[in-house]
Each structure stands twice: as structure tokens, then as C-alpha cells.
């Protein structure tokens, strides 16, 4: 193996893992250099700039709509006395669900010893961080006046699932940040070597967050230990975050929400949409940054299998959730259920079931369907279907209260989001994608140090 002498002096006994030293200099092979140059964050090309520009424009329209909501109040939305949780809460549940992917790909795979998943961990963590940020923001948007968020802490009751949700979302956000940060440290050390290409500001930022990383065995030991602790901690917290979100519904006595199945139903759905988002991101980053050597067809093959398993699991919970009430058809729930199966919401309901679960399963069951492009298409289907599924969990129920609506204005009987609601929602989705894009510009989307280590282990 050819070696390069890196111009960095180190003291005896402080040698990084997988390196040898000659005259107190760190030595890295040419193969390693190739990996580093392949995986370094890349500046935006023309397409990247257009992408960022479009996302920023959507965010700005969303911000203007939010300004209108602040200026005129929640009356600019279509939410009224009955549908008081509309598209915002559907979007919130979607973001919380998608954020669970961090715990699936990073923690579950790591603890289960799934080695092939390591190039995907950073993608998963970046998606998790972006999603959880916007889950928190969208809740503040839903409250109307933002100062109500402060009142939640001042006057909140520990007996309320809403407070539990606030606590676990905050906790999950911090865990996700740490889980993104710790594995980044060795990569920061590598990034700091490229002062010329990174630019001053970015270099200063890298120095601030990780210049202290020298790659000593002790630093590696502490970091590995921290990552292991985080992986163990994030799983129950991830389960809690989405179970508590499901309890916001299940503890409210309404048709369609009065279910003991809701926690598991939400978590299985969250893992599915999270995995769907990862395969979509994998495909895009692979194409945009030419990472075919690192995100291989085998990754798509395996993620395709994971998606099938999760889609079938979610389908099973959906059958549980709808088949038994359909069989009983209680009078108080009949209108709600008929609305979903054959009424106003039927096109959306069957779209969510077919496009969100059944069609992706059918595509991914076949070997040819687990090639990158079909997996990408199936992933998009899963994500889009999942968004509408959240809308269906929230809105139809609120339009069918147990006690019939009497003497209410016509606008209370229907719900279709206003342009402000659409703009804010699309703005939040664009915002999440913008964060993912920016993080992918700043940090290596595939862990460099980990890839080098794995390369060395394979060579041995």
C-alpha cells in the first residue's frame, strides 16, 4: 500500500487509529486519500444553486403567510371550532415520524451489528435533525400567537400529554444533535486539512466545533463510548416521542382515535416513512455527489428489503386499525368510517394505502424493483403517501364528533386548508429540505473516517 506523509506532527503515544508514524508524522495511504477526496463536501453546482434558490423562495412565501397569520390571527386559516387541528398538526406528526429514522438507521442498525448501514448513518441523522427542528416550529405555528409556547412552560401541567410531547421532542432534538456531532469529530479533523478549498468562514466553523480532535486512542475510546450510550438512549426516547404524539390523539375521545393500538401504529408508520426518506435522500446524494462507489446498488437492495418489511408491518397495523371498527360499524363511528372508505375522504384514504404501502411493496418485492431508481420511486411514494396518511388521521375525525353539529356556521362543517396554511406547510417542508441541503454542503454526507476504517478492515 502506498503511503503519504501528512504534514502534521504528533507526539509519541498519540497515534490515531489505522495510522502508522514515521518520524512523528501521520501517514495515510493513497487509497485513503481517494476516499477523502471523494467524500469531501462539495460546493453547489448550478443545479444545487437553483435547488437552494427554489427552497428559499418557498420558505419566504411561507414566512409571509406566517406574518399574515400573526397579523390577523388564526382566522386566516380554515381551522374552526371543530377542526381545530388541521394541516399543521398533520405536518407535525409527519415531521415527528420522519425524525425517527435517526434512531432506526443509526441506533438500531448499530446495536444489531448491521455493518452495511454505516454510510447511511449521517444521512439519517441529518434528516432526523432537520425534521425535529420543524416539528417543534410547526407546533408554535399551530398555537397562533408564539408567546403561547412560553406559557406552556409557565402554566403547563405534567399530567398533560402535550407537555410530555414538548419534553420528549426537546430531549430527542438534543440526542439527535449529539448523535450527529460525535461521529463528525474525526471527519472534522480531516476537513480542517483542506483550508484552501473550504473557505475561511467554513474553516473557522470547523475549527470551532472540532479542532481539538487529534484522533488519539483515548479520544476514540471516549467518542465510541458516547456513541454507544447515545444509541442505547435514543431508542426508548424515539419510541416515547412518537408514542406520546399518538397519545395526543388516543387520549382524546373521538371516533377513529379511541384506540389502544395507536402507539405501535404510529411507530411502525414512522419507521416506514423514515426509511422512505432515507432511500430518497440516498438516491439524490448519490447522483448529485457521484457517490456510486460508497452508496452502492447493494445498499438500495438492502434498504428495499427493509422498506418492504416496514410497509407490510404498517399495513398490518392499518388493518388492525380499520378492519375491526369496520366490522362492528358502531353507529357513532359509522359516518366517519364510511367517509374514509367510500365517502369524501375515500380517494385520499385509498391513495395513502395503495401508494403509501401496497404499490411500494409490490415494486420492492422483486429483485429488479430493488435497483436504485425503482427504490427511489418507491421511497417517494412512501413519503407522499405518509404525508396524506397523517392528514387522514387528523382531519376526518375532527369533522365527525360523537355529538352531532347543531346550529353552527357552514364553515365549521368542512375543512380545506387556506392558502396561508398551504404556504406555511410547504414552507416548513422546504425549510427541512434546505437544512438537509446545507448540512450536506457543510459536512461529509458519508462518514469519511468510518469509511476509511472499514476499508482497512476489509483489506486486512
Amino acid at each position, binding site marked *: 500500500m502506498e503511503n503519504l506523509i501528512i504534514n502534521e*506532527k504528533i507526539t509519541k503515544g498519540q497515534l490515531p487509529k489505522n495510522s502508522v508514524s514515521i518520524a512523528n508524522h501521520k501517514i495515510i495511504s493513497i487509497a485513503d486519500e481517494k476516499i477523502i477526496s471523494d467524500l469531501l463536501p462539495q460546493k453547489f453546482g448550478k443545479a444545487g444553486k437553483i435547488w437552494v434558490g427554489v427552497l428559499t423562495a418557498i420558505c419566504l412565501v411561507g414566512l409571509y403567510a406566517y406574518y399574515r397569520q400573526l397579523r390577523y390571527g388564526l382566522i386566516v386559516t380554515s381551522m374552526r371550532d371543530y377542526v381545530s387541528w388541521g394541516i399543521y398538526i398533520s405536518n407535525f406528526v409527519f415531521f415527528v415520524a420522519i425524525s425517527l429514522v435517526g434512531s432506526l438507521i443509526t441506533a438500531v442498525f448499530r446495536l444489531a451489528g448491521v455493518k452495511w448501514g454505516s454510510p447511511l448513518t449521517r444521512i439519517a441523522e441529518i434528516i432526523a435533525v432537520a425534521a425535529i427542528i420543524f416539528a417543534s416550529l410547526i407546533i408554535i405555528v399551530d398555537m397562533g400567537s408564539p408567546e403561547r409556547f412560553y406559557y406552556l412552560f409557565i402554566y403547563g401541567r405534567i399530567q398533560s400529554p402535550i407537555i410530555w410531547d414538548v419534553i420528549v421532542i426537546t430531549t430527542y432534538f438534543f440526542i439527535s444533535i449529539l448523535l450527529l456531532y460525535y461521529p463528525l469529530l474525526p471527519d472534522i479533523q480531516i476537513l480542517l486539512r483542506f483550508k484552501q478549498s473550504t473557505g475561511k468562514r467554513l474553516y473557522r466553523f470547523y475549527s470551532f466545533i472540532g479542532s481539538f480532535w487529534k484522533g488519539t486512542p483515548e479520544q476514540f475510546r471516549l467518542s465510541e463510548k458516547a456513541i454507544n450510550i447515545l444509541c442505547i438512549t435514543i431508542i426508548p426516547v424515539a419510541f416515547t416521542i412518537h408514542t406520546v404524539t399518538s397519545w395526543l390523539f388516543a387520549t382524546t375521545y373521538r371516533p377513529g382515535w379511541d384506540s389502544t393500538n395507536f402507539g405501535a401504529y404510529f411507530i411502525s408508520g414512522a419507521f416506514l416513512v423514515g426509511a422512505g426518506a432515507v432511500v430518497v435522500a440516498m438516491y439524490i446524494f448519490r447522483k448529485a455527489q457521484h457517490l456510486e462507489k460508497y452508496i452502492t446498488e447493494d445498499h438500495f437492495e438492502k434498504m428495499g428489503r427493509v422498506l418492504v418489511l416496514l410497509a407490510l408491518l404498517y399495513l398490518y397495523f392499518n388493518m388492525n386499525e380499520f378492519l375491526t371498527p369496520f366490522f362492528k360499524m358502531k353507529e357513532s363511528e359509522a359516518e366517519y368510517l364510511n367517509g374514509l372508505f367510500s365517502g369524501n375522504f375515500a380517494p385520499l384514504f385509498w391513495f395513502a394505502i395503495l401508494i403509501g404501502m401496497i404499490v411500494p411493496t409490490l415494486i420492492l418485492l422483486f429483485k429488479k424493483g430493488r435497483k436504485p431508481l425503482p427504490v427511489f420511486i418507491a421511497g417517494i411514494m412512501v413519503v407522499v403517501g405518509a404525508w396524506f396518511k397523517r392528514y387522514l388521521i387528523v382531519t376526518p375525525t375532527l369533522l365527525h364528533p360523537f355529538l352531532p353539529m347543531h346550529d353552527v356556521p357552514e364553515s365549521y362543517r368542512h375543512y380545506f386548508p387556506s392558502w396561508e396554511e398551504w404556504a406555511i406547510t410547504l414552507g416548513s417542508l422546504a425549510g427541512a429540505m434546505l437544512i438537509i441541503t446545507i448540512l450536506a454542503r457543510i459536512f461529509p454526507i458519508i462518514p469519511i473516517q468510518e469509511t476509511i476504517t472499514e476499508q482497512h478492515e476489509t483489506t486486512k
Partner: protein
Amino acid sequence: MKPQNKSIATLLTIIFLLSGYKGFTQTAQKADLSIAVNYFISNNKVPRLMVKVKTKVNGRFQNVAGISLKLFLDKDTAGKFIGKVVTNDDGEATAYIPPSLKSQWGNSLKHIFVATFDGNKKYESANGDVTVAKAKILIDAGSDKTITASVFEMKDTSWVPVKGVDVVLAIRRMGADLAINDTPAFTTDSTGKASGDFKRDGIPGDAKGNIILVAKVLDNDQYGNLSVEKTVPWGAKFTMVNLFGKRTLFATRDKAPLWLQLIAYSIMFIVWGILVYLVFNVFKIKKIGEDITAGIKKQ
């Protein structure tokens, strides 16, 4: 303005002005009212009248509110005036017989109660009446938990037992009365008595276990509605548990259950403890790195 337009405008003005003239409107037909007078006497005290007013709309009876009625004892004359009442949303109005009619009440064994309505814009005048004989009901509860009701009618100057009257024996509850056993009603024998066994052991009573027994004659053609109550200690002692101000899931934030606080804060403490430890761990890693940098600089 053109002469043609002028004449059209004039014609429209005349039509508009005449539209307010009642001669164009059809005379609305007044509806008929049905007035039912019911007689009640509880615990053999002051008799009470309850009047119910209905009208037929599309073949169905509906209660009529706001109907002003005059009530009389025996005759529709000024000296026998009981009072003036107005029906509520249920079409009902109630009045007690005033002390001024005491001598009139004592003069006869049978009385007619008359309710009259003078009519208004919507309804024709109407009246209703009910005839009742003076009667009373007594209740007795034996130590063997047998309840006996006795019905008497005033004949000449004495109370005489009445045979063949249906009596309901029940327990007073919040919503409605609960029968003492599965028999809905008991019939009086030649001694005017009707008996039933109490089969509701364990029913919650008040703090001392007291329950109220009631014997009722309902809508009797001769005697109207009679009822009498008796308190007995046959119920289970009930201690009201007031959760207001206690630690419950639905209490205010300062009254959260301790078990919930313990679980919630323990979890938060453990998880956030781990996070704080991991943040300190970063500083530990930083320190190692800084020591190395300082060592290199010294060299």
C-alpha cells in the same frame, strides 16, 4: 323622466304602499289548545295543580309555552280564583291552592279544578278541568322490610279505606324513583292496604344509610296523584369522596399525582443526566486534544 316610466314608477309605489294593507293578507286561522289539569298532593299536605297545554301541529301534539291561564276551584267565578299562571317551555304551569280558599275546600268532599284561557292572536279560547275526591295515602315500613301503603277516601266526616287502587312502592333516587322490587304496582285490598317486600339491599343511601321510601297513586281518575314518603335506614352508608383539590390527573398543575411526578421526573432526570454527561464528555475529549496541542508547541 319619460311619461311611460313615470306611470310605471307610480304603479310600483301604489303596490308597495298597499302591500302593508291588511286587507290583502289572508286571515290566519287560530289553532286549538288542549288543556289538561292534574291534581297532586304530597305527604297529605297542600294540594297542587299542574296544567299542561298542547296544540296539534302537523298531526302531532306539541307543548305550548307562554299561555296565560286562570285557575278556579269549582266554578269560574271571582270568589273562587286560585291564581293566574303562564306555561313554561314544556307547556306546564303549577299553582298551589291558596289559604284564602280553605273554607271552600272544606265545604265539599269532591272538587272541580277549572283552567281557562281567554284566547289570543294565535290560539282560540279554551278550558280544561279535573274532578277529584278527597283522599289520602299513608306508608308504613315494618322491621322485616315490608312496606305497606294504605289509601283512604273521605266519606262524610271520616276516612274510609279504598279497595282496588294501584299503588307504586318505590325508593326516591336522583333521576327517577326505583321500584322496591320487580313488581311495578300493588293493588289495595278491602282494608285499603297494599304491601310489598323491599328487595334492594345494598342500595346506597346517605351518610347514615337512610333512604326515602315513597308510595304513589298515579293519575287516578277519582283521586288524582297522591304520594307519601318515609325515611328508613335500609341503605348502605355512602361517604361522598370529593376529589376537588386532590392530586388527580385532571387537577391543576400543583396537584399532579405524586406517582406521576415521580415517574416523569425520574425519567427526565436519568435521560438529561446522560445528556449532560455526554456534553461533559465532549469537554473531556477537548481537553485531551488541547493538551496534545500544548505539548507540540512546547517541543
